[in-house]
């Protein structure tokens, strides 16, 4: 048995364990909700989830990355409000952030 082989097996085992843990998260919430009665309150909670996940993901990044990220995000939202084009929103946001990073000390 070479060292390489034994390492491979261990790596594969680790990958399988990580895969199982991740799939449990991906499927677990969906599975659990099958046992929860869909009351109006639960439905409102789930309806709030996309916006909540977005803000909880994006706001800390904006605070961490500073003004270029803040202006990029604001510009993206403004473009979306005006034209409802997500490509344009991303392009304009990135252009603003790139310019600010280039020209700000």
């Amino acid at each position, binding site marked *: 048995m070479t060292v390489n082989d034994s390492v491979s097996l261990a790596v594969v085992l680790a990958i399988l364990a*990580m895969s199982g*843990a991740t799939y449990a998260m991906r499927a677990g919430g969906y599975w659990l909700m099958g046992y929860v009665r869909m009351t109006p309150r639960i439905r409102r909670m789930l309806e*709030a989830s*996309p916006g909540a996940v977005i*803000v*909880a*993901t994006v706001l800390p990044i904006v605070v961490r990355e500073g003004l270029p990220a803040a202006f990029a*995000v604001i510009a993206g939202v403004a473009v979306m409000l005006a034209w409802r084009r997500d490509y344009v929103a*991303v392009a304009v946001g990135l252009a603003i952030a790139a310019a600010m990073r*280039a020209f700000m000390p």
Partner: protein
Amino acid sequence: MDKHDNAKAPYWSLDGLAVGARLVLPLMPGMVVFGIAVGSATAAKGFTLIEHLLMNTLVYAGMSQMVAMEVWPRHITYGAIAGLALVVATVNARMLLLGAGLRPWLGPLPAWQIYPVLHLLTDPGWIVAMRYRADGGSDAAVLLGGALFTFVFWIVATTAGYLAGSLVPDTRAIALDLVMPVFFAAMLVPLWRGAKRAIPWVVAGLVALLVQQFVAGAWYVLAGSLAGIIAGGFTDDGE
């Protein structure tokens, strides 16, 4: 009146696959850059090409793989494997919320159709699918189409990063690290249902910032999202 109340029962269509792919397309530049970074980190840890492909196919959760690479043990013991599984589960715990959000829409479909698709669930695919749903759509193929499209991009990008090693260009200069935040924020516009429905978003943001400030690691996404969702339960349906 909620759009959910008059949304049709879920169904599958071939056209939906293309719709889903089109919806996630704007996110692909950021996804590719991130994939390249994950691929090169994987190569740096001495993974073989097969191991790299196995991980990106079977785990397929970039942020958690990145953290796993940072704490990857030199000698893999059963204890280390359990530790890796725990780390990955922790980073991916927010996916519980994503899956839960899909239940009202996809619940009527047979389990065998949904559980395989859930393996391909990612934040971008989920966000665009939930936006499609909020606009009254019911085609489950939109979720699958976006998921498959993202998966193909991910495998190609991580493999490119794996093969290129540390030759990752400076993507911060063209702000490609901000594709995801800008796109996600833009998605708030079609999701907007009035100020009252946005109170949970504010709660989510405040809690996320607080947790980011005081707790190490990426717990803030889960904590903020959970707080926002709970707050959502306390906002009443009003016009």
